[in-house]
Structures are given as structure tokens and as C-alpha cells.
């Protein structure tokens, strides 16, 4: 008996629950084709960063004007005027179009905006470029001590609402875990139009170089352990909100995928594992998932999806326990 691996995500039927998360490999269409061939059921392209686009355009402008008209002998500036600067979103939109053209699986665009107008405008552009769905990659580091949590959440919600009204393709929202009440907030996001939630965004955290005392952004790839926070919230949200759930962060092995599916994820998204091991990792993980399902007599992914969510778990409290409590209970109070 063959196991049915299909899963539904954002209303799209995917051939399996393995999706490529936004990551640098996705900048290259050839690589995207290899990822598809290795088993990816959909790809999320790397994010279009509005801020970066604007910054780059302005930097080009600055550089071209720098030193110009300052002195009689170099009135025209120092760098030659180029035919094209490719500063706008076009290169990204071309990637969306090329990916859509080259792949059979759904192509999901990803957007990080900076201004309200920017979010909606770029969202529309990504839709028009051919994306099957859009993932909003929202984050604000709420470093302003005068801004309340409610205000921060309000900004997220307004944004989702605006983008939702600007496009017609399915809309997923990728958020970080730093909200006081993630469940409540998740529901609000769905209420304003999110078709799916992607849990969780992992931010680069700063690091310190002890020799130079410089503060550096440090990119660190995840491992399987990183995914357990996701697992908790997927399990808690499963069945409680009307939206697809994607698990991202810490998806490295078939075991990781299976656990997240059991908790209730519709799809699992991989990035670090692919960066470490290449596209072949998808095949390995998929084989592992298939094997486990067969071994454990599951007929389909749909069948097992969410079967161990908080609602369906024999020990719902386990998802709410903090770790040290768990340890305490496990070790100091054996049941009698």
C-alpha cells in the first residue's frame, strides 16, 4: 500500500508536506529546479526587502553624486553613469516570474515591507509577477519603550488587512514568537485575512566579538532542537483557528517533520538543513516520512496531521508545561 503524502496548504494541494522556506538558495532558478526535483512540494522565495531596495537605490544615488560638482576638474562625479542600476524590485519580480515558469510546484513570494504603501504595492507586484501565494515576513524589533504590545500588534494587523485587500492570491503571515499571547494574536491575524500562519520567524541575534568589542549580527543555522517552540504552538493552535499552519525553524530530519505534522502542521518548511546538506536532504527526509508512515500503518499525511495536537493529545497539559516543571515532575515525583 502506498501512503498518500498530499497535504493542503493555503488552499493549495501540495504533493507532500515539505516546503522550501525562504532562504538564499532560492535566488537561483536552477537551484529551485533541483529542489523541486528532490521533492519540494512548494517553494517560498527569499524575501523582497523594501527597506533594502530603497536603501540601495538611495546609496547608488549618493555614490553617483558624491564628489560631483565639487571641483572644476571633476564636475561630473567620479563613477561613470551606468545604463542600468537595477535598484528597484524588478530583479526580484523577474525571479518570481522565472521560478513560476520553471517549476510545476507552487511558488510563494515573500515580502518584508517598510512602509504601509510599500507593503501593498510590492505585494501586488509579486502577485502580478506570477506568485501562487504570498508570505508576509513581518518583524519589528519593538525597541521603542513607549510603544505598548497592543500597539505593536495593531501595526501587524493593519498591515495584514491592507495587504489582504490589495491582492487576491492566498496570504500567509510569518511571525516571530515574541508576543504575550500568541494564540490570541494568531486568531486576530486570521480574522483580518491571513489564510495561513508560518511559525516562527527566526531573527538573527546580535553577537559580540570579544577581541574588538564590536557588536556583530550573527547568522546561525538551526538544528532539530530549535523546532520545539514551533511544535508547542502548532499543537496549541491546531483546530482552534481557521487557517493553514506551516512549521518552520528546526526542520532537519524526517522525525522533525513527523512530529510537527502530528502536532498539527499542514506543511513543514526547511532552510538550514538545505543550506547544510543541499537539495538531496529533501529526498532523504521525504523517504523517512514515507517509511515511518508505512511502518506505522498510516494511510496518508492528512490522516495523521494534528493527531497529537493539544486538542487530540492524551496529555494536553504537556503542551502548556514549562520545561523545569516537567523535569521536576518527571524526576522527583514518580507516580505511585
Amino acid at each position: 500500500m502506498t501512503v498518500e503524502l498530499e497535504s493542503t496548504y493555503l488552499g493549495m494541494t501540495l504533493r507532500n508536506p515539505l516546503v522550501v522556506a525562504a532562504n538564499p538558495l532560492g535566488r537561483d532558478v536552477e537551484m529551485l529546479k533541483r529542489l523541486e526535483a528532490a521533492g519540494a512540494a512548494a517553494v517560498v522565495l527569499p524575501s523582497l526587502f523594501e527597506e533594502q531596495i530603497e536603501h540601495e537605490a538611495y546609496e547608488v544615488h549618493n555614490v553617483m553624486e558624491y564628489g560631483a560638482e565639487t571641483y572644476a576638474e571633476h564636475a561630473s562625479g567620479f563613477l561613470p553613469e551606468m545604463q542600468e542600476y537595477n535598484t528597484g524590485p524588478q530583479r526580484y519580480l523577474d525571479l518570481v516570474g522565472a521560478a513560476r515558469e520553471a517549476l510545476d510546484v507552487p511558488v510563494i513570494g515573500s515580502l518584508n515591507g517598510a512602509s504601509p504603501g510599500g507593503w501593498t504595492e510590492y505585494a501586488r507586484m509579486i502577485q502580478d509577477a506570477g506568485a501562487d501565494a504570498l508570505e508576509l515576513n513581518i518583524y519589528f524589533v519593538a525597541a521603542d519603550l513607549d510603544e505598548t504590545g497592543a500597539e505593536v500588534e495593531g501595526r501587524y494587523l493593519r498591515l495584514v488587512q491592507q495587504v489582504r485587500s490589495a491582492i487576491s492570491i492566498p496570504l500567509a503571515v510569518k511571525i516571530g514568537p515574541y508576543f504575550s499571547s500568541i494564540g490570541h494574536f494568531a486568531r486576530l491575524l486570521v480574522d483580518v485575512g491571513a489564510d495561513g500562519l508560518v511559525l516562527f520567524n527566526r531573527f538573527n541575534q546580535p553577537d559580540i566579538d570579544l577581541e574588538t568589542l564590536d557588536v556583530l549580527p550573527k547568522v546561525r543555522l538551526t538544528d532539530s532542537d530549535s523546532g520545539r517552540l514551533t511544535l508547542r504552538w502548532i499543537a496549541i493552535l491546531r483546530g482552534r483557528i481557521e487557517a493553514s499552519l506551516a512549521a518552520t525553524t528546526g526542520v532537519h530530519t524526517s522525525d522533525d517533520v513527523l512530529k510537527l505534522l502530528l502536532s498539527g502542521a499542514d506543511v513543514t518548511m526547511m532552510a538550514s538543513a538545505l543550506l547544510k546538506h543541499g537539495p538531496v536532504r529533501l529526498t532523504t527526509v521525504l523517504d523517512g516520512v514515507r517509511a515511518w508512515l508505512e511502518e506505522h500503518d498510516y494511510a496518508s499525511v492528512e490522516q495523521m496531521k494534528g493527531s497529537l495536537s493539544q486538542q487530540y493529545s492524551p496529555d494536553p497539559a504537556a503542551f502548556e508545561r514549562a520545561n523545569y516543571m516537567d523535569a521536576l515532575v518527571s524526576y522527583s515525583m514518580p507516580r505511585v
Partner: protein
Amino acid sequence: MDRPIVTVDGNESAAYVAHKLSEVIAIYPITPSSPMGEHADAWSNAGTRNVWGGSPTVVEMQSEGGAAGACHGAIQGGALTTTFTASQGLLLMLPNMYKIAGELSAGVIHVAARTVATHALSIFGDHSDVMGARQTGFALLASSSVQEAQDMAAIAHAATLKSRIPFLHFFDGFRTSHEVAKIERVTEDDLRAMIDAEDVAAHRRRALDPEHPVLRGTAQNPDVFFQAREACNPYYEAVPGIVQDAMDRFAGLVGRQYRLFDYHGAPDAERVVVLMGSGVGAATEAVDRLVAEGEKVGMLVVRLYRPFAADAFLSALPETTEALAVLDRTKEPGATGEPLYQDVLTAVAEAGADGTLPLQTLPRIVGGRYGLSSKEFTPAMVKAVLDEVDAETPKRHFTVGIVDDVSHLSLEFDPEWTAEPEDVVRALFFGLGSDGTVGANKNSVKIIGEHTDLHAQGYFVYDSKKSGAMTVSHLRFGPNPITSSYLIDRAGFVACHQFGLLEKVDVLGRARRGGIFLLNSPYPADEVWDRLPAEVQRQIVDKELRFLVVDGYSVAREAGLGGRINTVLQTCFFGLADVIPVDEAIDAIKESIRKSYGKRGETVLQRNFAAVDAALDALHEVTVPETVTSELHRRPPVPEHVPDFVERVTARIIAGEGDLLPVSALPVDGTFPTATARYEKRSIAMEIPIWDPEICIDCARCALVCPHAAIRIRYNTPDELADAPESYLTREPKGRDFSDMLLTVQVAPDDCTGCGVCVQVCPAKSKEMVKHKAINMEPKDEHLEVERERYEYFLSRPEVDRTTVNTVSVKGSQSLLPLFEYSGACSGCGETPYVKLMSQLFGDRTVIANATGCSSIYGGNLPTTPYTVTPEGRGPAWSNSLFEDNAEFGLGIRLAADARGEAARALLERMATDVGAELVEAILNADQSDEAGIAEQRARVAAAEERLEALGTPEAAEMLALTDALLRKSVWIVGGDGWAYDIGFGGLDHVLASGRDVNVLVLDTEVYSNTGGQASKATPRAAVAKFASGGKPTGKKDLGQIAMAYGNVYVAQVAMGANMTQVVKAFAEAESWPGPSIIIAYSPCIAHGIDMTNQMDQQKLAVQSGYWELYRFDPRLAVTEEHPFKLDSRPPSTPFKEFAMKEARFAMLAKANPQRSEELMEAAQEDITERRRLYEQLAGLERGLPGEDVTV
């Protein structure tokens, strides 16, 4: 036919035609002609085609001599060929020009006519260069305006093909080449119709080709050379007719009729001024006013100057002409008159003698010089000239525009007399180079030129500093074509885009009564009055100016434009000037922004649009009080108590009054005192570094890297500081050196440019607050007074005793007095720290030969020089010969020092008995290899001088003139990569091969920095530069390897930001090696597209990536049979890409053409790997130095 109306400058105007009518363009950058080549290159790169459908090949050569050679070859190869040049560049072309003309070859050289360097270099305009080419056999065709620069270019290209005589088409550098004006552009059809296909075919048929071989360029003997030389005469005789035909054909097509000589003025004129070039504009206005006033005067414009068509000249004059005043924009010392004068005289005299003169009388002829180096030439001067010919005994040879109180040749003129049409709107804008004022004004000229029926003109004046430089824009608009080829004297609109300029410059001196004054002010309308200097208030009140303010910086910041205030001020100008209805103007401004910046991205447009939209709301009228209330005053140009020359001359130049200096005020031979930059207190920094002694670790890096010698360290004994003001800071030094002394790190608050490089390299960080370093950039205003007091005291303290210092260390070298200070180089310049280090180590015994380029400009452009002296009065003696000959020039200085030394030693030896045998022997055998030895020799020489004075014999007097030569001299040959790698390479190679004791410092910015960023052979692969806008496909020349090949040349490659100790060592080793030495110094430049504040970090990265290897090749080690090549940098630890992508010169290509960039970056990485492999092998090589005992 409707032809496009465009607003362009003279260079673009001429280059447009040249590009359309050429197949091969070989060029070399030289101001002010460089933009012609840059335009041609850019058009060809963009695929713009010539009228025959091909895209001209533009090739940058190593010098103008090379460009001329390539042009000669291309012409011989049958291509339609052109080039662009000026000044020394044209002179370098002369040998080829004789050949090209001698071979009757069609081709055109477009020249933005520029002063040839004599007693001084000047980048500005006159005819001394083209006059130096009049004997080559080229035809010379002059344009006098931006429109004509296009029209005559077309006529030149047509006439050269028809006549087979090569043409030199010229127009005045800057005044025409850089004036922006509204012109009618000829179409491709016009140009096609100008050229006869048969002429092109004939040109091509003359090509050297093995299918129909010929021999050209023979050597000839006395038997035939002469006759053969005369064989070309009929061709020259035909030229005037051919040119007139071309002019007529042009008139038939386009409507503008030109003649070989164009007369303008009263038909019955008695007095006629003859001239060519941009002065024609001013002369036209003067003649028009005088004729309107009933005077019988006129003007004859010379267009075809060579061959000089005497008949056409004479017949163009009204037959009533009684007197001719011939004006030459050149000087030919010793001649009976300047060239045009002589031609006119000959033409009149010959016709007079023959009885064919078509005039009623034999006219009186006088000749005068005007306008050298773009000296202003105004209608008032033309009037003075026309008045002079009317005088009873006019000066037969005069000058006009200056006050000559030496030879008394100058004519007086009335500066109040004006002939400028009343219907012209005149506006003046004062800004800084960095704020975009000039760019916006160029746009305004375009907007008015292209959106209205008005004619428009823009001309831009820059000062000679590269940091904090002021620009003044002169804009005119009017219903008729604008002929005023001179600066605005009375402006109805004056804008000052920088508040700080009010206390430095007389901004309102040229404001017209009742005019408008727009000020970019950080203070609101109700506060600004009290912030104005009294002199400004006085003029506002007296001239009844309407006064408005806008806080341009706030508006720009709000719009996300940082410090670029140009669009804000531009919008305010249109809001006030009433040239175009405001709404229309705003639309037009936006359109022009879209046109200028559209390619750079929507963000750039939106931010500029936002600034435009917010500008008028931020504009506020100031209620002007009736009286002057301010106690603030304009700063004097120099402080009190300065040397006499500085007071009389330098200060006037700094104050912008150089035009008023009479001839007697100036040195006769171009010799100026050094140590003058210290008097030019520019105070341009907003933030300056402030020292915190608590944290300082006494490393001296800040002082080493400072491009302006504006942060210094000093060690003094506590006794020397006994009278220190309370505010004066010191600390005990960290190391063992200077252990009984106190350290001070001090900023020169008025000389610092605020680049922040010192703070960036400071390694000492507070333990409590990491961002707080031992020096920190802080707002200048908060510290100015205290720091001035500290610095004054700092300067008054005794210098360290050089003989006790270990100078071959960062700290030791920085304890020495810099003899290069406060230069006008760009803020954060990457070159000047090396020059300054050299001055500290050897400045008191150095003669510098400086190649033309940035270093000669910040080193020797008036008003002041950064080269300075020790308290004893010793310091670098400096000179600039040319661009191409600097190594040879420096060698000559070495040879002279050696020759003088030889003569001194011989004479001293002969005088041993008189002077004292012991002293003489000590002098002759002195070891001057270190500071102590030099100091001792100075003492001995002083003792000898004392005895010689006492002797008082003629022999003693002879010896006294030679005693200086007994002291060791260090000769430094300094220049950039354009000189060392390209134009001066042949000479440099020869000098390195000479074995002589010279030190070459190559300030390698990897691009022609001074002329605006053109590629040189030092430009690396994958970088973009002008003439390499698609990314330079070939690798950088390895100059060090070439030098090393000689074996006896000391060679070092250094990068200050990467290894400071290695830099100091390399300088010391180079100087101490008694043969030739060369140091190739990595010098970041704003042309790299980096933030100069970070230049030292970027140097570090350049070395870490292997992009710039550090090494020293010391022939002394070859003598001892060791490994003479020391590879000082570690194996690359960072990919090239990581370094490169931080520089716009590489990153821009990655954006513009990612695929090409990827290919080139890969090749550049391979360059690095391969070079490292080679260097590592070299480091293992043993090498000897044969013949080291043979002396040169």
C-alpha cells in the same frame, strides 16, 4: 524642420557632432576637454551610432602623445578619426600633428582651449595651446559659443574630408566648454548632408592596405624634401573656399550663416576690434551699446584662423575702417606682437603695399592681450580697447583686464560701464560642492531652456580646494540668445545655500538694489536677523533686498535626502524668481528629476519629489529691520600678524580679491613662500576629534592617519609645560619611549575637516562605555574656544630633539613635526597621510618633484601651500614641472644636488687651509646616514660658514653659495598612478634604471582622481571607471614587479590602514637606500565610492583579501645574498568579493550587469591567487646584486 532644443555645455555640444561623424576616437583625459571623451565613451557604450550606422570605437591611451599616435594610425588606416584635448595635451600631440598634416590626412582635433603652463599651471582657458599648434599645418577653426561649438564642429568635419587638411576646432576652455546654454541641435540628417559620400570614400581609399600597397612616411634627403614640402600648397590655398562652402551648406541646411570672418557693428565703423573665441560675446554687447549710442565701431570675429585668408579678412571689414584693435588671448614673450595681431598686420601691410587694400585709409593697428587663464573679459574692457585706438597716441601693445603697474601696458576700464541687456534675469547661487547646488542649477537652466521660449545660460565657478569647496553658480535667462560671456556682476536674485558662507564671503556684494536674497537658514524667519554678520545686514538694508529663508536641511532630512538640499533650494528659486508659473515649474522640476535620476530607482525620485513638494511651505519672508544691529562680523581672510607677503598677496587671494592685485604684487618667476596654509583658517568641520587622555594608549595612529595634520601628538618635558594654560591636557606616555616626558594629543580645530579617520583607527576604548574612545568626534562649536587655546599653546612648545627619537616607528615618526599641513585635499584623503609622513621623516632635507594631479593641486594650488618649515626655517622645497616628465624632473634635481655637492666638496678641499683642515675633513667624510649625523654636519657647516664669512675673500663668497650642498638632500618624486603607470611610465622606468639616489612615491588611487575618475593601468580588473564603464576587463599592471626586475631598485608596496609599522619602515628604508627607490602606496579615494571615514579599515580588508599585497624588496639584502623580497602580508584570509562589494566601483557593476561582474570578479580573484603564488615563490628566492661596487 524642427530641430531639438537642448541645454548642454560646450563640450557636449562639440562631442555630439564628433561622435556622430567619427569611427575611431583615441583620447586621453585632460581638463577641460575630458568630458568630450567621456561623453563619446558613454555614447558608444550605450550603443549610440554615428551617421553611417557604426558605433565609434573609443580608446583611452596612456598620454596625449599616445592618443595622437593612435589617431595618426587610424587616419592612415582609413578611419574617420577624432580626438579631444587641451593645453599640454595638445602640445604632446604636436609631433604627430605635423605628420598628419604633412600627409594631407583628414581628421579633427577638438580642443577646449586652455592655458599652457609657464610660471604656473592653470586649468583655465586661453589660446596659448592652440597658438602653439598654428605651425603644424592643421587648419584652425574657432567657436565662440556653445551653439557654435556644435556648428563649427560639423563644419570642421566636413571641411577636413573635402580639403584633406586636418582641422583643429577650438573653443574656450571653461567659458565655453563648461557653460551650459540652450542651443538648437543639428540632426543626423543635417550631419549626413554636410558630408559628401565621395569625400569619405576618397579618405578610405587612401588607407594603408595590402590590397593596394603604398609607402608613406619616407625619409627624404636634401634633394627632394623641400620640393615635396611645397607640393601641398594648392591644398592649403583651397581650404578657405572649402570652409566657406561648408559654412554656406550649413546655412542652407540649418539657417545659421557663418563666414570665415564675421563682421558685426556699424556699417560705417571707423574702429573695429578683432578677436576670436568666447570674448566675442562680451564684444558683441559692447559694440551694440556703443553703436546704439552713435559710435562708429564694430567687431570682426575670426572663425577660420589657419590658413589665414587675408583677402576674406580685409573684405569683411567696413571700408570706412580707420583703426583696428586686435585682441589675442595668449602671450608670446619677445615677439613683435601676438599671433593674431601679426597676421592682421601682415594682411593689411601686404595689401597696402600692393595697393589692393579695400579700405579708404591704411588703418592704425594696435594689439593687446586679454583673458589669460580665463581672466574676466567684459564689455567695459572692450570699450576701453575701442577708446584706446581712438586716443592720440594709443598703446601699440597693451593688456586689458588687469592692472599692470610694472610695464604699464594695461588699459584702464570703467567697471561700472555695462552693456548687458536689461531684459535678462540674473541669479547668483553660493553653495558648497557637496550640497548639489551646481547640479540643481544646471537643471534649472535646462528647465527654463527647454520649457520656455527663454534663452538660458549657466556658468559655474569652483574654488581650488577639494574639501569644503565653495561653488558660485551664475545663471542668466532672457528672451534673446545670451551672449554675456562673463560673470554676473549685478544679480536680481542671490541665494546662499550655506549659512556658514555669510561669514566668509561677500555674498551680497553683487546683489542688485531691490533684489531678492534667499538664504538656507537653520534659524527661522523671526530669529535669523540676529544671526547675520553686520556686513550682510548692512547690504540687505542699504540695497532694500527682499529677504527670505528656508530651512533646506530640515526639509531635505524629512524627505530622506540627508544633506542634499539642492531640490529644496531649486524649488524656492522658481517660487521666487517668477520665470515660470510656480505650478508649471514644479512639474518641470519633477520631470527633470525623473530624467536625471530616473535610472537610479523610484526611491530616489520619490524622496526628491517629497522635498520639492515641501519646499515652498518652508519658505518664509523675513521682516527686515531698518537698521543694522549685529555685532557679528565677517571673518578676516587671515589672522593678524602674518608675514608681509601673506598680508599683501595671499590674504587678498583668499578674500576673493585676487583679480584686484596688480602685476607688481606677484612674483616674477612663479616662486612663492611655503608655510602659508597655516594662515588660511577654513574651519569647515562640523565635528572635530576631542582627546580623552585617560583612555589614550599612546599609539600615535590618529596622528599618522590624519590627512590634514590636524591631529598631532607632542612630547614635552614637564618643565617645558610649566606655563601651560589650565585647559591644556597631558598624560604620561604608556611605553618606555619618552618616559620622562608628557604626551599631548591635540586637534587643530580650525584646520580639521571632520573626516573622522583618526577616531575610526583609535584602538583605545573606554572600559565603562565601549563607544567612547581616546578621541571622539564632537560638535566643533562646543569645543572651539578651548581647543583653539590648547592648540595655540601646543604649537608654541619646543619640538622633540630628532636625534633622540627612534623615527622608524609609528610613535617616533609622529613625534616629529609634520612639514605638510592643512592641505585642501578631500576630507579623508588617502594620499596625504603618506605625504605627511614623508615630510615628518625627511622634510627638513627634501626636495620634491611633484607630478601634475591631485597632489600638485593640494600641494601647490594658490592661494596657499601645505608645505611648511621647521622652527629653524627648513622644509620641503617643492616644484611641479609637468604631468609626464616628473621622474625626469626629479632626476634632474638629484643630478643638480650631486653636482653642487661635488663642486662644494672640491672647493672646500681647496680651501682646507683657510677653513681649517680638521673641520674640512670632518665635513667631507661626514656620515649623514642618520638624524644625529645630519645634525652634526649642519653644525660643522655652520662653523665653516662662520669662518668663510670671516675670510671675506671672493673664494669664500663662492664657497658660501655652495655650503648648503654639503648637507644631505633627499629627493622625492611624488605623483599618482596616472603619472607612474601611464603617462610618465617611460620616464619613471628610465629614472629607476639610472641607479641614482631618488625616492619615488606613487600615490596609487588606481584611477585618474584629479580629472574625475578615468581608468588608468593601475585600475583593477572588475572595477568601473570612466572609460571602463563596463568594468575594466584587464588586470592591474604590477609596477612593483617591473621595478624589481632591475635588482638594484628598492621597492615597497604599502597600505597604511593595513600595517602602519611596515609603512614607516618602507619610507625609512627607501630613503636610506642610496640608489633608486619606489614606494607604491595604496591610497583610497572618493573615486572608489567608499565612505572615506572608513578608508583605513578598507585598506585592511584590501590586504586581508590579498587584493593589495604588502612587500619590501631591499637590494641591500641582495648584496648579502639573502632573500631580498619580504612578503609582509599574510596569505589572503577574506574573499576578494567581501572587500570589493564594500566599494561602489566594484559594487556598481554587480548591480548594473551582474553577469559581467561575476565573470570579472572571478577573474580578479584568480589574479589574487596567482599573484600570491608568485610572490610566495619570490619570497623564497635568493638574489645577488652584481656590480654593486660600480658607482654611477
